[in-house]
């Protein structure tokens, strides 16, 4: 519970899914990334620069800005294309949800493993529609572009709010807050998961875990 959650909903054509998702995820990540930290001796650090890149979409009348990091782009693109494949496998009018979860790690005492505690979750719900003719597609192309523009402004508004962010870590803790595996950029720790058609109920494993926890707790 102790985490913000934002929901974005888009309705797109099947071929637009990938670009739309990339646009939104990259927009969010752009604001949740910083340059690499270079720690100095006296507990200070300096922040490297982050380059940005304009990306034009092929199937949507839209241009978005992303962090100019090929590595990050590769990771995101991989997740998105998996999502797209899964979505197209289900049939014509799929519904899906891709979520981008920012978390931080907490060291725990010995018997427990490290906890990953999310602090912000972005869920993007996708509705795939089928269009009959080229004219409709053309309209859709513009419409989706406009919609994405709105969403981007929406995202920026949310991010602009003065809300909880993990504190800037010291050198030893930087791995608990930031993803330091990339060479040129350092986003907050994130996780991308997707779900095709919102299935009911919680998974078996969480139920078992809860049962166990509940019998153990007072």
């Amino acid at each position, binding site marked *: *519970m*102790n*985490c*913000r959650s934002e929901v974005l909903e888009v309705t797109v054509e099947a071929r637009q899914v990938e670009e739309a998702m990339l646009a939104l995820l990259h927009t969010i990540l752009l604001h949740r990334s910083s340059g690499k930290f*270079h720690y*100095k001796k006296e*507990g*200070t*650090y*300096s*922040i490297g620069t982050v380059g940005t890149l304009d990306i034009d979409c092929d199937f949507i009348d839209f241009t978005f800005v992303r962090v100019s990091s090929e590595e990050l782009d590769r990771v995101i693109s991989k997740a998105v294309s998996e999502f797209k494949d899964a979505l197209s496998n289900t049939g014509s009018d799929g519904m899906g949800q891709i979520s981008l979860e920012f978390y*931080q790690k*907490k*060291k725990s*005492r010995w*018997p*427990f493993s490290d*906890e990953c*505690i999310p*602090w912000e979750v972005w869920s993007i719900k996708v509705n795939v529609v089928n269009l009959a003719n080229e004219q409709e597609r053309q309209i859709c192309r513009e419409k989706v572009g406009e919609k994405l523009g709105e969403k981007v402004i929406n995202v920026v508004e949310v991010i602009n709010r003065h*809300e*909880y962010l*993990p*504190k*800037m*870590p*010291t*050198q030893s*803790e930087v791995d*608990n807050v930031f993803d330091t595996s990339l060479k040129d950029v350092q986003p907050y720790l994130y996780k991308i998961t997707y779900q095709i058609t919102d299935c*009911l*109920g*919680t998974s078996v494993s*969480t*139920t078992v875990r*809860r*049962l166990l926890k*509940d*019998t*153990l*707790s*007072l």
Partner: protein
Amino acid sequence: MAHFDTEYQRLEASYSDSPPGEENLLMHVPEGAKSHWHHIENLDLFFQRVYNLHQKNGFTCMLLGEIFELVQLLFVIGFTVFLANCVDYDILFANKFVNHTDSSKVTLPDAFLPVDVCSARIRDNAFVIFVLTISGVFWLHRLLKFLYNVCCYWEIRSFYINALKMTMSELPYATWQEVQARIVEIQKEHQICIHKKELTELDIYHRILRFKNYMVAMVNKSLLPVRFRLPGLGESVFYTRGLKYNFELIFFWGPGSLFENEWSLKPEYKRGGNRLELADRLASRILWIGIANLLLCPVILVWQILYAFFSYTEVIKREPGSLGARCWSLYGRCYLRHFNELDHELMSRLSKGYKAASKYMNCFLSPLLTVVAKNVAFFAGSLLAVLIALTIYDEDVLAVEHVLSSITLLGVCITVCRSFIPDKHMVFCPEQLLRVILAHIHYMPDHWQGNAHRYETRDQFSQLFQYKAVFILEELISPVVTPIILIFCLRRKSLEIIDFFRNFTVEVIGVGDTCSFAQMDIRQHGHPAWMSEGKTEASIYQQAEDGKTELSLMHFAITNPQWQPSQETTHFISQLKEKVHREATGGPSDTHPLSLSESEPRSLIANVLVGPSTLNSVHFSADGSLTNHAAAGLGNGASALRSLSPISSSLQLRGSLSAAHRPSGHTSTTSKAMAGSGTDAWTVSSGSSAWEGQFTSLVLSEYASTEMSIHALYMHEFHKQQSRGELSRHTWHRQESDESSDSIPDEVRSEPNPHSRHLLRSHTFPTTVPSPCAIPTSASAIVSTARGQEGAASSHKSSSQRPFSGSTADSFSAGGRVLRSARGVPMGGWAEEGQAAPRHPDPLPEEGLEDDMPPHMHKVT
């Protein structure tokens, strides 16, 4: 090499600061995670644990307690098995002789069977093996739980020490309010909850009590099948821990429950679309859980016995009388609990009402049983006396077979009989007692008032306040009854339950899904008959019964004075407080304290307040004569709320504190000014934060309970007056609930919940319609009894009251709003009483309730 001496020179200083290559970089200082208490994942669990650790008085106490429990359980099981299987009783009873070479004495080890025989006996006995297995699992379960808890609570302990800056040794003496204030404080620094900059008290309560609030609301709206009409037994309540556990399993956390996790309801249950389908699913789940219960019945039974044994042996051992003593039933706790009331708050409230409640129940000892018991006790007593006398003369008598055992038996017999013989000094004044109880328990069905002397009321009260033995018995039969209730009663309610959760769940930012009743919003859930007339927009289905919303709101506002509710709510609270205050100050200000309570019998609040306020003033006045006034004022005024005065005497302390802290001007000598100022101090400190830091919060909470009692009484009083005008509505409801009480309506939303109105139904309701106004306050109860004595000395309650119901009703209609009517001008039936009472000044001692009652209404038994 020419050297030009020019004015142009290299600027060196600007480059010397930073090493080459990093000139233009900004330097940052990381804040680091100073503590790891920011952003806690599961705040519900976290706050619960913080609360539990506080309630268990710190880590060490908890640890030790749990270790001893584990050891105790092991010992109990081991010892029982040993006694059953490994002792040769023939040797102990000397039916068999052992051959000893050196001495003729039988030693204890002689009676023990050899190990191999013993283990063989255990192995052959399937039942023992079964019990042992279950006990083993039970013990292992507790052990695991213990280990898990130690790990978790170690974290909480360091939270207390590092974040809250409280050591474990001071924890037992800190109130929860104090702990809570610190949590609210550190939220600003650590951001435990990331949604909000600041936590409120209500957030914390919501999280700790999320599911309990739902249960309270469901009991309040009579959704849970806990009352049954049994042939022969009449209406009875069956609600055990086993049943409660199953309810919680089904609703809150079991596999496939309505809740996704601790803080959110599953989204499909929030939509009304497929409610029928969801209800079907819930019904089938209930069926399966019921069947599972049925199959596991024997296991659960043994488990229950272990639990019962474990929890109660100690109590029984310590005070054998406690089995006969009563306790608040599980249902009672649910019924009487406010929304957002923590366990310790409820317990302290109920404990304060315990004495009065048991006295009330003892009023109804059966005369027949008393006669029998008296005689049995006589015979048993004489036998016992003879035996003891003989033993004293020559102790060889003890050696005669069965003399010792018969002495013991006779002693037990006399003890049992004595519990059926009422105290000689007991006074029958149920109405008064019930009012005292009400001051603490805060809830009571409407039709009890004025009917306190009836057996039906007593029976219904016993549903809330049952014998401990009955409680244990119910627990023991629970494994058998629970599946039946689940399968046959709860299953039919599945649609209502689905609707309930959909309609009464709200999502609060930073808290998650909570029961909307727990928001204590007068507009959403207020009941027009409970002071929220005109403010509430709730339909009948949405109204909380018994004024629960309003009373809970007052309770929460009083226990958490720092809490800042919404505008509307604040308005309601301040309005109510002002009303109570006016009642309180108005009375004492223009009448002499001594005569006040007599001339103003109807203003109960004034009566109550005279005690504390005069006490206050007495405390810091040196004038001796005033002490007399005050004592009299207390004695007369607080007689209705007798049990309040121990609490209000704690106000003495508060009073002295306030005297110390208030600027000056407190040493006024006229009783009028003193009563006024005393009450002022009392009320000022009530809600404002100005007093924070001046009192220890312990004093504050002690005092808050008194204030809450007064408010509760006031609200009940107000409700009674208001509901007199609305009898038609009540009767209408009554009829409807009668008609449909047995058939479950399919469409709940379309019709008001028929089970909701009268939680405790009385068969006598129509006949008792006029009586709520017959005896408006306990003060008037005193009046009527006093008059009964003066006039016709009739010992029959109802007949002695009847003549006055007319006059009181008159006075009500004449006075309009009784509690506000002009003071000092006795009206109607009270005029005579105003003069009559001083004739019986009866300076009442403080101890013992019965002593305080008018001495003329002995119940002849």
